């Protein structure tokens, strides 16, 4: 009996010691900022992940060629200046982009960052031996030349307007990874992917313990100045309520991805809440296939009546705690929206008139409008997210008041967002109205969801134009913007696009859906950007 007691005691003590042997040591007066992430990153190799929680760390330990500031303006990091037609960085035909690199940029081990690192990153991305997360947008580049160590020349088949928002989101150290690729024939299993001890950000990777934490310490060789913080400690806390508790009791200095309903609790505890727009605008799409759609929604007057019958402003105020407002376009809070556009007002009487004009009246007295024997009954679907279900319930009640009956459908996210070939309800045209929010390559506005050649079908099962809209005028505008490398010209095209979609009510916004960040007051100098949240992290500091 005594021996067993000793066995248990020794086991527990040795487990305790074994568990605490993973490192994670910190010391003395080092300024350590603790971030709370609700998801753990999958890998730290920029080519192998698009996961948001992974990619936002690149401003900490890796580097983009340029960041975006809190106004979404580009800020050069590795390049001397942003390429443009004016400085000769973009050719007259828009097909060649030349980047001039700074001559003081170095990896954290002191090795110079050169054009060879860019060429290597490109080569690794498109090499089929590497199972990278996406080959976009590098598969748009025809060739890359490196005439000298500080010059990178990219040639495209067609002018590529979205280059600034999509290219060079992290680069690879060729001097570390080239030998790995030559030896193993792939980067899939490189140790650097999970322990990138050589980086180019203001901090250097130190340690990552699965499921628990990751540490990044100050990079003394960072060319834009040594960071004020000594260490970034990222703790993975998957539970939302536990994250809030950690922010409230001061165990976390920064957290994100919490609900609007948590904001009063956080603000009550002195946590500053930042609303950062990253391209998400919750809205409703109509299924407008010329043959398969409901005849009512093909009429723009009916679509306009629907948006005017829903009190979106009150929903934002009461349900979303007045922390946001109705979205006007799918590109709200970007530089590409026609500034004259305003949200459609809530006006049920005007909605009724529009429906009358369109010929939809309640001829059989059942409380639901009809026309030519077809009842105005619409299927409205979305995911099971609570706030979306609340919106559906409100819309159902308010639309009933103008004589439109709405049947509600909710699906788990993986089912709702499934593609045409997987039987997704939105992709398949099973819903007359479907609600979600998506972001383009923020802050770039380019999307392919409105193109005629992107309508899903048996022949094109991967099509992402789930609205099945083929409007030649709109299609031409989208095709044009994709090739306009000149910002001003492209902006004007997008003004037309946003106005056109607004007038035709091909989509209507419910609310703007910014990222919420909670920052404890002891963490100062914090600015957050929608595209590169930690763009000025070298300036962040801790005060008592």
């Amino acid at each position: 009996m005594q021996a067993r007691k000793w066995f248990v005691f020794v086991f527990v003590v040795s487990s305790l010691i074994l568990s605490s042997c993973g490192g994670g040591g910190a010391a003395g007066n080092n300024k350590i900022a603790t971030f709370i992430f609700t998801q753990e990153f999958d890998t730290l190799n920029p080519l192998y992940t698009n996961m948001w929680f992974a990619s936002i760390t690149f401003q900490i330990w890796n580097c983009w060629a340029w960041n975006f500031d809190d106004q979404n303006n580009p800020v050069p990091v590795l390049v001397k200046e942003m390429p443009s037609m004016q400085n000769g960085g973009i050719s007259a035909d828009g097909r060649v982009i030349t980047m001039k690199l700074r001559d003081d940029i170095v990896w954290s081990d002191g090795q110079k960052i050169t054009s060879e690192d860019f060429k290597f990153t490109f080569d690794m991305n498109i090499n089929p031996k590497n199972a990278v997360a996406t080959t976009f947008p590098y598969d748009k580049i025809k060739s890359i030349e490196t005439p000298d160590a500080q010059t990178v020349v990219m040639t495209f088949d067609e002018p590529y307007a979205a280059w600034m928002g999509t290219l060079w989101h992290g680069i690879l150290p060729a001097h570390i990874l080239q030998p790995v690729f030559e030896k193993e024939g792939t980067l899939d299993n490189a140790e650097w992917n999970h322990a990138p001890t050589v980086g180019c950000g203001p901090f250097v990777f130190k340690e990552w313990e699965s499921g628990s934490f990751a540490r990044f310490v100050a990079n003394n060789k960072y060319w834009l100045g040594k960071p004020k913080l000594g260490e970034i400690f990222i703790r993975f806390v998957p539970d939302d309520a536990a994250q809030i508790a950690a922010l409230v009791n001061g165990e976390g200095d920064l957290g994100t991805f919490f609900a609007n309903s948590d904001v009063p609790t956080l603000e009550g505890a002195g946590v500053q809440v930042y609303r950062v727009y990253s391209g998400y605008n919750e809205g409703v799409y109509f299924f407008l296939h010329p043959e398969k759609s409901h005849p009512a929604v093909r009429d723009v007057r009916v679509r306009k009546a629907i948006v005017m019958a829903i009190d979106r402003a009150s929903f934002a105020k009461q349900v979303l705690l007045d922390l946001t407002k109705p979205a006007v376009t799918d590109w709200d809070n970007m530089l590409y929206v026609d500034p004259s556009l305003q949200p459609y007002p809530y006006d049920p009487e005007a909605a009724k008139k529009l429906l009358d004009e369109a010929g939809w009246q309640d001829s059989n007295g059942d409380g639901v409008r009809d026309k030519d024997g077809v009842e105005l009954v619409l299927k409205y679907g979305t995911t099971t997210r609570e706030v979306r279900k609340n919106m559906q319930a409100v819309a159902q009640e308010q639309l009933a008041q103008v004589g439109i009956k709405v049947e509600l459908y909710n699906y788990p996210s993986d089912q709702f967002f499934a593609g045409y070939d997987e039987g997704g309800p939105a992709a398949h045209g099973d819903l007359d109205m479907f609600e979600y929010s998506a972001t383009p390559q923020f802050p770039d506005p380019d999307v392919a969801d409105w193109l005629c050649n992107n309508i899903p079908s048996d022949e094109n099962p991967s099509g992402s134009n789930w609205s099945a809209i083929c409007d030649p005028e709109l299609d031409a505008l989208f095709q044009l913007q994709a090739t306009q490398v000149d910002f001003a010209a492209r902006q004007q095209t997008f003004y037309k696009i946003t106005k056109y979609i607004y007038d035709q009510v091909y989509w209507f916004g419910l609310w703007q859906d910014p990222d919420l960040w909670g920052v404890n007051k002891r963490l100062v100098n914090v600015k957050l950007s929608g595209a590169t949240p930690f763009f000025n992290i070298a300036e962040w500091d801790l005060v008592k």
Partner: protein
Amino acid sequence: MTRYIIRRVLQAIPLLFLISIALFVLMQNVGDPLATMGGRTVTRAADRERLTRQLGLDKPVYLQYLYWLVGNDWTKVDLDGDGVSETPGTRKGVLRGDFGMSLVKRGVPATVVIWERLPNTLLLMLTAEVVIVLGALAIGIYSALRQYSLLDNLMTAASFVGFSMPIFFIALAVIYIFSVYFKRWGLPYLPAGGMFDPQVGKTPWQVALHMVLPVTSISVISLATYSRYIRSTMLEVLGQDYIRTARSKGLPKRDIVFVHALKNASLPIVTVIGLDLPLLLGGAVVTERIFAWPGMGRLFLDHLERGDTSVVMGILMLIAVAVVLFQLLTDIAYAWLDPRIRYQ
């Protein structure tokens, strides 16, 4: 006994084989490993097609299972999508100790991913199990000896309260009480989550401190179950003739309770513990999630959601092997506790 053990081990082999087939087929219907690879946007069709091929997900399920079991280094695979299999496979298969690479933690062997978490889970769960068993023994024996006393009634009521509360409620309640509000009230407080304070470092004391709340949460519910179980079996044994004989012989009460009664009352308790122990390897999904404890429960859930067959199968097979092993150990414990039991 040796022959019995060898026979049981041999019987387990086809059983584990059948379990692996069933679990592998079920895994094909859980999660989509490619769905989240697009980040905040839907994975592009071209990337989906390429990754499906490169990760071997385009193969029929029987072939995927075969590769998982025996590897694919005896054949070639098509990486560039030209329809020609040109690259030799590299997987060795489970039978040669290769559980494959994780699809979530790309490029890391599933065994490494699991092994990183196993000590944390064992530390948390075994500590909780020790607290539960010792606490339940104390409560159960006391309640049996002092049946219907005030303390027995109080502990019975407390057991039912503990048993009725969902674990997430207990976990969040103790966080807010002992971490958030204690700090707000200026009292000594406990950490809300994680394994250590980064300002101090990962010392044994820090880990122990961070274990207090999760161990408490796990223990509350199981303590109620176990103590009720021990109470009822002890009551049954204490009413037996041989206990009355022991009393009439004038044996000390301590010997009667702990040597004669408890040992015989232990058989059903050993069964319950034997069933529970292998499941400890699976960790405590909810508790680990709420307290940000990096254990197997969280690992299982995170990787299941993203269809990471290699890691999920590794965890499930580990648990399956442990169940078989602990059932065998339970049978051996029976024979030790009750000499009348003999295995042929």
